[in-house]
């Protein structure tokens, strides 16, 4: 499989008053046109890994890698304007809460058109047509109406579909979805994932799906990376999750209460200091 993305020994650290915080400590993986899941508990470095690929690492942080390359482009040596051009056009990111990513004072349709026009030379008329088509692609039933609404006028599930529409309108080759459905109800969550799934396979995109929910990730992705303390502790095909070798992965799987199994007390995770070495 041709490699869309190569991440080799990625490190991100933050200087703080109490010393340096190493958020990402040597993460390596490659990605083709596939669905890759990144799971781990909060603070394990998932978002900072995604943000580093996007070029959204905060300015005061230190970032380094042996290789951080998208389609042969060395991202760490690329200029700010090159990275801006990539972002949104060829690489896009969806965040957990659309409230923070959508502009509250601009209609939904307008925002999608603006995103498109930042990267492509299209007329307002064509922009409108493509925005409407995209809203339809994320299964918004009445795109004409939603086009004229403001973000606060739509539900969480609808807002997340709008986000997906906005992120996919330029036809990116790589999509990073950071907890894209964690704020949604389970049934809505699956509807949104089904839309994402369909678009990813139809358009032949690479997808990095970041989540704390190991069960959801493994049901959705081809391959899963498990992070702990800024490192990858295990990488395996989703289908082989039951054969996970690392005690952290096993612990994460076992500690979940499931319908129909009765384990009282639930097995708890015994953290070993060596996992974080």
């Amino acid at each position, binding site marked *: 499989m041709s490699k869309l993305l190569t991440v080799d020994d990625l490190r991100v650290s933050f200087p703080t008053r109490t010393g340096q915080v190493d958020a990402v400590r040597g993460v390596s993986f490659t990605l083709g046109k596939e669905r890759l899941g990144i799971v781990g*508990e*909060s603070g394990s470095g998932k978002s900072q890994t995604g943000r580093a690929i996007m070029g959204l690492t905060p300015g005061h942080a230190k970032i380094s890698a042996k290789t951080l390359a998208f389609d042969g482009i060395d991202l760490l040596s690329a200029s700010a304007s090159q990275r801006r051009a990539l972002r949104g056009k060829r690489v896009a990111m969806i965040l957990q809460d659309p409230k923070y990513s959508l502009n509250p004072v601009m209609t939904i349709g307008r925002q999608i058109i603006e995103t498109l026009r930042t990267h492509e030379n299209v007329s307002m008329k064509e922009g409108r047509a493509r925005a409407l088509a995209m809203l339809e692609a994320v299964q918004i039933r009445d795109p004409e109406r939603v086009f004229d609404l403001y973000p606060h006028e739509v539900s*969480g599930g609808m807002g997340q579909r709008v986000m997906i529409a906005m992120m996919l309108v330029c036809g990116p080759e790589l999509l990073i979805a950071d907890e894209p459905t964690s704020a949604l*109800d*389970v*049934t*809505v*969550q*699956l509807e949104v*994932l*089904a839309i994402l*799934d369909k678009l990813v396979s139809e358009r032949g995109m690479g997808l990095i799906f970041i989540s*704390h*929910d*190991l*069960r*959801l990730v*493994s*049901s*959705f992705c081809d391959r899963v990376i498990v992070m702990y303390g800024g490192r990858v502790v295990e990488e395996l095909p989703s289908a082989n999750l039951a054969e996970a070798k690392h005690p952290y992965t096993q*612990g*994460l799987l076992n*500690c*979940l*209460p*499931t*319908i*129909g199994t*009765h384990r*009282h*007390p*639930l*097995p*708890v*995770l015994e953290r070993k200091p060596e996992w974080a070495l």
Partner: protein
Amino acid sequence: MSASALSVRNMVVAFDDFLALDDVSIDVREGESFGIVGESGSGKSTLLRAIAGLNSFESGSLTVAGTSYRGQTRSKDFYRTVQMVFQDPYGSLHPRQTVDRLLLEPLAIHGFTDVDVRIARALDEVGLGSGFRFRYSHQLSGGQRQRIAIARALILEPKILLLDEPTSALDASIQAEILNLLEQARKDRGLTFVMVSHDLGVISHMCERLTVMRKGKVVETVSVDALENRAFSEDYTRALLVASEGFRRD
């Protein structure tokens, strides 16, 4: 059948014209662990809050341990019987108070004098040593805060705990620890639980029966056995059950 711990009959809660609870009834038996599931906005928190006297209710009745309550009026005795634990330990515990103050407050209100013994015992019961007593709550992790919130709820030795998504903000591994702690406390003290969660897995693990809510109404009330054996009648319950099994490509 054991006695009724708590009974809600035809409860209606309105915010302006909006019916957050629309004719809701649940009956919880003494010693039972009773679950409430449903999508966000379905009225789960409103129901617990109305029981606890944090919301008023327009009509219907509420009976707890044989006593009827109306509106938001609750006697001091009520809080000796019923305590509540919230989802967000960041919101429910004042960040600039020490653990000691947080645990002392309910004891002082109810006139207890053996406070040192009780605080030490409460911390011990939730698996935090006495070393935590003079920490500020903002110095604690999410899981530790939830342990303090549980200690605070248990310190008055209530009979009934109302638990509103007590583990939804926590990582899976911490959730398991808190669920185990709650089960142990229930066993040791013969508590009755009314537990709200959007996670059917958590409810089926913790409860014997559950009510499914949607849009302020009860969809149905079933036993966890019936849920596991697919012996329920509503499509919505099935949708929740299927969704809890993860993503399916078809």
